C-alpha cells in the first residue's frame, strides 16, 4: 500500500464497485412513476365525473394521493415500491408523503414532541425549504416582469 497515494487508491477502489444497472433503474423508474401518474389521472377523471370543478379536483387528487402514499408507508409497502422504482417512486407526491410519514413512524418512541414532530421533516425539510424558497423567488420575478401589465 506504500506505493499508492490517496487519489490513486480512491480511483482504484471506485473501479472495484459494481456499476449500477442504469438501464434497468431508468426503466423501472419510468414504469413505477408512470403508474403512479396514471393512478392520479384515474382519480382526477373520476372526480370530474362526480361533478367537482377544476380547482377542487386538483386539490382532492393531491389529498387522495398523499393519503394513499401515507397509507402504503404505514402498512410497510411504500419502501418496497421505492426500492424498485427509485426516483419514479420518490418524485410524485406519494413519495413526498412517504418521506414525511416514515420518519414520523420511526421516531414515535422518542415521544410526540421531540420524536414525531421534531423528526417528521428530517427528509422532506430540505424539499420544503428550497421548494417554498424558490417559489417565493419565482413569484417576485413574476411580479417584477409583469408589473403594470
Amino acid at each position: 500500500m506504500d506505493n499508492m497515494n490517496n487519489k490513486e487508491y480512491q480511483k482504484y477502489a471506485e473501479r472495484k464497485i459494481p456499476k449500477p444497472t442504469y438501464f434497468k433503474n431508468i426503466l423501472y423508474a419510468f414504469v413505477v412513476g408512470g403508474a403512479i401518474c396514471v393512478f392520479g389521472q384515474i382519480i382526477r377523471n373520476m372526480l370530474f365525473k362526480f361533478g367537482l370543478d377544476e380547482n377542487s379536483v386538483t386539490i382532492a387528487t393531491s389529498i387522495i394521493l398523499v393519503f394513499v402514499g401515507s397509507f402504503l408507508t404505514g402498512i410497510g409497502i411504500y419502501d418496497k415500491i421505492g426500492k424498485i422504482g427509485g426516483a419514479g417512486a420518490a418524485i410524485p407526491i406519494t413519495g413526498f408523503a412517504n418521506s414525511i410519514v416514515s420518519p414520523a413512524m420511526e421516531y414515535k418512541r422518542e415521544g410526540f414532541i421531540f420524536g414525531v414532530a421534531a423528526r417528521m421533516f428530517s427528509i422532506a425539510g430540505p424539499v420544503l425549504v428550497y421548494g417554498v424558497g424558490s417559489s417565493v423567488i419565482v413569484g417576485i420575478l413574476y411580479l417584477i416582469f409583469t408589473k403594470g401589465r
Partner: protein
Amino acid sequence: MAEKRIGLQTVKLSNPPSILGTATVVGPKEGEGPLKDYFDIILEDDMWGQESFEKSEVKIQEEAIKQAIFNANLSSKDIEYLFSGDLLNQIITSSFTARQLNIPYFGLYGACSTMTESLSLGAMIIDGGFADKVVCATSSHFSSAERQFRFPLEYGSQRPFSAQWTVTGAGATVLASSGNGPYITYITTGKIVDFGIKDANNMGGAMAPAAIDTISQHFKDTGYSPDDYDLIITGDLGLVGKRILLDLMKKEGYDLSKVYSDCGIKIFDGVEQDTHAGGSGCGCAAVVFNGYIYKEMLKKNLNKVLLVATGALHSPIITLQGESIPCIAHAVTIDNLID
C-alpha cells in the same frame, strides 16, 4: 520490559488464554442465512418483545453474554471483567447491558472491529495476570443502526451495490487463564488507516487498506505466512473490500486466495437475501466468530485462524462535514494448539 512484544504491532501471549464458551443471538434474516446452524438463539422477531430497537439490541447482547457464561459452565459472579461495545451513540447497548449484569465493565468503541478489540484486551488482561475469567462481547441491530446512520426503515430509498447490510445479532466469548482451547496466541493491534474514501456506502473500499495494513504487519511481526493459517477472515469488508484486499495483498507479496474469507460474505446469501455487498456491523464478526469459527475449531475442521475485524470509525455528523472515513483492523490469532 515488554518481553511479550514482537515486531512493531504484535504481542505474543506467553500464557495464551483459552476460550471456555461462546454464544450467539441473531435476528430472523441472519437465521435464514447460510450459517444458521451455528447460532445458539435465532429470533423470530427482531423486536424480541421490546418497545424499541435499541432496547431489543440490549436484550440481544445481554442474552448472548448470559448464554456464553452458561455455556462455559460459569456464573456471572465468576467473571472479573466485561469488555463490550456496539455501534450506537455513547455505546448505550453495552452500558445498558452492563447495568443488568453486575460485572466490572470496560466499554469499547471500535465500530465493527469491536469483536477483536474486546478479544485483544480481554486476552491481554488475562495473560498479564490481572484476571482469570473475562467476557468479550459486541452487538449490532439492523434497525437501530439504520436509524442512526441512514434513513427511516419505511423510507423508500435504493441501496447501491457497494452498500452492506447491518447484522442483527450479538456474540460473546468467555476467556479464561486455563482451559482446553481454542487459545488466543497472538494479537496484532491496528493503526488508523484512511485513504480518503468519503462514501459511507462503500465501507468495504474504505476499510480494506486498514485490513491490508494489519494483516501484512502481522506476517512481518510473527514470521507467519498465509499458508500457516487454515482461515484468514476479515470482519465486514464485503464483496468490494474482498476484491481489493486479495488484489492488493498479492501486490504486497502475500497470496491469500486459498485461505481468505470475510464474515460479511459468509453470513448472508447475497443474491437470495438481497444484501448487496454483504453483512456489516459489530455483530457480523461477532456471530461468525462465536458461531461458525468457534464451532468449526472445536470440531478440528479449523485449527489456526486469523480473525481480523474491521471498523469504519465515522459518524453521520462528521461525514456531512466532508471528512473521510478513518478505518481500523485488529487481528487476533486463534489456535487449537499451543507450543
